[in-house]
């Protein structure tokens, strides 16, 4: 048996303890060990952005980080955005309102990236929005409505995301 490391991590406010193989990627830990399948896995080499999460409030590709490295960290996934299962987070609501999603595969990464952007820049310019989203690929919605959604989110939330 390969060595296992004990990891204690707070995901969406809840503490989890698991013994993991060092090679287990954070995205697979979230999906397979914790059952949080809202984090999607696309390219597995840091290009598509679908697996983007927040680690200690900083954006991170969860396919480019090992679960063992998240020991002692706070992780936020798309499941942790809304206050409850019956609510939408304000950024989720604008993606709905502005038709910022279609198939939904890239959406969790888009939402997390948008939250991080608006926390740092409450009123981003279109250029800043596009630069922030440049690491998140969408193959079906088209970027126009996603950019519109982020703009609308900025107007509605005034940085309180």
């Amino acid at each position, binding site marked *: 048996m*390969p*060595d296992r490391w004990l990891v204690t991590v707070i995901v969406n406010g809840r503490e989890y303890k698991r013994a993991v193989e060092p090679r287990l990627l954070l995205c697979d830990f979230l999906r397979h060990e914790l059952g949080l399948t809202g984090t999607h896995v696309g390219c597995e*080499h840091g290009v598509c952005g679908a697996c983007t999460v927040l680690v200690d409030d*900083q954006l*991170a*590709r969860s396919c480019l980080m090992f679960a*063992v490295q998240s020991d002692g960290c706070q992780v936020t996934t798309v499941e942790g955005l809304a206050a409850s299962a019956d609510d939408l987070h304000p950024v989720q609501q604008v993606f709905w309102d502005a038709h910022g999603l279609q198939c939904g595969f890239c959406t969790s990464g888009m939402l997390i990236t948008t939250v991080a*952007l608006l926390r740092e820049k409450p009123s981003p310019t279109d250029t800043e929005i596009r630069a922030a989203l440049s*690491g998140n690929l969408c193959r079906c919605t088209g970027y126009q409505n996603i950019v519109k959604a982020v703009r609308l989110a900025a107007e509605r939330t005034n940085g309180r995301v």
Partner: protein
Amino acid sequence: MKPPPFEYVAPRTLDEAVHELAESDGEAKILAGGQSLIPLLNFRLARPARLVDLNRIPSLTYVTARDGGLAIGAMTRDATVERDPRVATAIPLLDEAIRWVGHPAIRSRGTVGGNLAHADPAAELPAVAVCLDATLTIVGPRGTRTVQAEDFFLGYLTTVLEPDEILTEAWYPGFTHQTGQSWLEFARRHGDFALAGVAVVLTVDHELVESARIVLTGVGGKPFRAREAETLLVGGTIEERAPAAADAVRSAIDPDADIHASKEYRTHLAGVLTERAIHVAYERAVAREPAALDVRRSLEHMSRHA
């Protein structure tokens, strides 16, 4: 794909890390931000027996004013550098270029030391380090040594680092009187590796170029210092010399063709970017107010208030 199995160690101090590497018989890889290494592992292009993770060593993360410049610890995240106002003041070239490194989610994990040590031929930070004549500190079982950035890079993904050595710091000189710095690159999508990029640092006196450093990325195996173009600029006016310098770059480089761009396109682009970057650096050099130029004083001021 998933990474192959490896032994994992997470030392808490630099000494421990040096010890772990020395024990690894050259079979270990250092894990810094992981934004280049983990894709290689995921694709199983790299299969190290052991990973020595530097992320638990707090002493490798810092930005400190020192000797008229800024010292940046190897594990300092790109995003930290990007947000540090001292970097914008003291090393405007680095401040400008680091925003082109990957995407926000890459920069919040990626590190300055990892970027330099990985030595991707199209990366920004190696060219910036060579252009600014940065001093790199390397620690290993045989002690500490320093290397100028120009001597650090050997070729495609290759540096002077021995398998048991760790890059611990990059020190960048602060910008000086009448200096203008400029970074320009072109990529098909913001955050992708550049098809070509260029760093220019000019010192200008009475509208004449006193000294020039021009370093390109993406046009060879390692940062390319355009010495002939630098020499051409010195002593002349920009209108007269910039086109010649760009031509000198075009004839000196021999970039590879790939799926993103042909050799001819990259060569042309490198010349265009060089000429534009020279103009930008020149305008910045001329526009500087002397009062704002005393970097030593402003760095001391900043370190007092840090």
